[in-house]
């Protein structure tokens, strides 16, 4: 016999007072051990769970509890996992996607927001939240004229709280930097990890692109802009190390492709890579792909790289999540990179293709690529 709260409700009386008591005595979605029960209440014709967990249907119907306005669906949820989802509610034959009205937890991204459910044991890492003891770094505007793109590009540069012109700093060059700050708390994470001495003081270029799908997909102009224009300008005007081990490219999704392809085009220039859920689509026969035209240059690039994997940096941190379809491409990349002398760390988590997943891996990635002085400094 099931111990799940929803099954107990189904077996017992579920009139108005019983339903109200059930709703008041639980938080939703209901996580019980390895199970999660999604619940919706309302006068609708149907409710579907919309999620993006690779291997599961993108849309699953919630069950209607007879003679009530309650809808429910119970699924497995592994420990420490994080799942983003929405409900599609159907009224008068029309579907509408909404956040779960019973769930206060939500994650934002450039397209809006999703509801979030956490498996048992998952907690939001405390180093992603503002620590009043951590001195905040500053964000400075930066402008670079680009011959590669025949335009002018602006971005933000993070300077650590104790920035001094007499020191030399490593440079972290971040693709989709504003999104990392907005949706993955990157500035707070940098402030905290520097404060805890888990990473050294870093200068961070938080760059974006007006056409990321085009420019991040192995566009030669992008690699030239980053390597021959933006970084030389930063190194000329800021006290940066200016050595391969002091230069790191970072990005998620297409930003991961941009980081890898830029490093491939300029071997020996970059010493560190931080690649999160890279969209490393490839094909084993021909160059066809199922992901759409935007991926065509990516597939051509990855196929070339897979035929002849070259050493692209000294160290690379790669992360991907089990709930995203790109897990196949990322897992396939690892043995390729291992054939070179690259020092590689690859981690997986039970999460999806989203900013909070990328946020949660930042501590592990940054502190591995740039170990801080925590063993040397005792204030």
């Amino acid at each position, binding site marked *: 016999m099931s111990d799940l709260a929803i099954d107990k409700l189904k077996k017992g009386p579920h009139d108005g007072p019983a339903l109200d008591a059930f709703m008041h005595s639980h938080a939703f979605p209901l996580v019980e051990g390895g199970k999660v029960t999604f619940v919706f209440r309302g006068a609708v014709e149907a409710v579907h769970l919309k999620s993006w967990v690779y291997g599961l249907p993108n849309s699953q119907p919630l069950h209607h509890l007879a003679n009530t306005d309650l809808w429910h669906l119970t699924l497995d949820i592994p420990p420490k996992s994080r799942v983003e989802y929405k409900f599609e509610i159907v009224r008068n034959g029309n579907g509408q996607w909404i956040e779960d009205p019973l769930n206060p937890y939500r994650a934002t991204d450039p397209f809006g927001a999703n509801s979030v459910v956490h498996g048992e044991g998952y907690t939001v890492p405390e180093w992603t939240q503002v620590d009043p003891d951590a001195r905040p770094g500053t964000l400075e505007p930066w402008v670079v004229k680009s011959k590669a793109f025949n335009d002018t590009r602006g971005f933000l540069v993070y300077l650590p709280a*104790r920035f*001094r012109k007499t020191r030399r700093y490593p440079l972290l060059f971040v693709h989709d930097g504003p999104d990392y700050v907005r949706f993955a708390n990157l500035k707070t994470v940098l402030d905290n990890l520097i404060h805890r001495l888990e990473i050294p003081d870093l200068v961070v270029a938080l760059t974006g692109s007006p056409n990321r799908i085009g420019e991040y997909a192995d566009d030669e102009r992008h690699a030239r802009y980053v390597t021959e224009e933006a970084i030389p300008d930063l190194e000329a005007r800021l006290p940066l190390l200016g050595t391969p081990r002091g230069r790191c490219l970072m990005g998620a999704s297409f930003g991961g492709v941009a980081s890898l392809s830029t490093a491939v085009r300029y071997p020996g220039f970059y010493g560190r890579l931080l690649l999160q859920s890279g969209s490393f689509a490839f094909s084993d026969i021909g160059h066809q792909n199922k992901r759409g035209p935007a991926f065509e240059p990516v597939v051509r690039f990855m196929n070339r790289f897979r035929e002849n994997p070259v050493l692209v940096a000294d160290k690379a941190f790669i992360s991907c999540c089990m709930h995203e379809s790109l897990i196949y491409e990322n897992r396939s990349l690892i043995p390729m990179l291992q054939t070179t002398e690259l020092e590689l760390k690859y981690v997986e988590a039970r999460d999806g293709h989203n900013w909070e997943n990328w946020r949660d891996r930042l501590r592990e990635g940054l*502190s591995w690529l740039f170990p801080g002085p*925590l063993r*040397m400094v*005792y204030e």
Partner: protein
Amino acid sequence: MKGVLLGPQQLKVSLGDAVSALGREGPIALVTCGWQEREDNDEDLPGQLGRKTINLKLYERGEQVLAADKSFARAHRARQDQLRQIQEFYRLRLERTFDAALDIARKSAGTDLEADELRLSMEQIRRIDQEHLERVSSLREAYELQLRPMERPVIAKHRKELKAILDSVGILAIAGGHVAVLMNRLRMFGLKDLLADQALVAWSGGAMVTGERVVLFHESPPEGFGISEVLEQGIGLHAGVLPLPNPRLRLKLDEPLRVGWLSKRYAPSKCVAMDQGDFVLFEDNRWFGEEGTVLLKEDGTVGTGWTH
């Protein structure tokens, strides 16, 4: 020597109590070179220590030495590179041996045979520590024989100035910060040999570098088990206690295996954890731990408020 060793001072300042406990008059000489370029940011310390202070400015003096004596600077940097390399190789050797010891501990059901195996692992780790200490010491000795730093004019000039300052104070206070930088500057100017009968107040990293050996530790790093490692011999102003500042952040005192191993590994020194504001007093080989200080014991337990 008489002195006080303290934990961190950011959240709970106890420097004034420490100075009072020493019963020494006169101004205080300050070492804040562990703060590196921020060495001068010492404006709060006179108020906290309750005395007039004179900063020895060892970081700035060190920079002047390296700028003025180019051949010394080159040899100094080459030596630092060698020390870093030795430390890296020592760490590799230590990690492998430590992993084996952990595996044995995990498989152990507590039989006499297994206890012997664990004892053997601990002996191996202690031997690796000892060999590393000896290796670093012989490198330092060779360097000092070759370069004779105390006889170099620019260093001799600074030592003379430092001696004059130290002769006018009753207490030497050493703040925390980067322990390798602290060690580097304290050794560069041979500060120990310039002391007469001054008392010592040293907190956090300052307490660590003034003992018999410097042990780096952090049991909750972003990754890995967090194995402590020996850096080198300390300055040797006190003996018998291994200070472990900021245990709330850096130690796992609720894990008996870790506590017991730390205690056994660094015996006969007593491992003493000192949190914000906690302190221990010493006079020659006698020690008195304030109520908040924590003694790590070989059986994996901890005790507070102890004498030795």
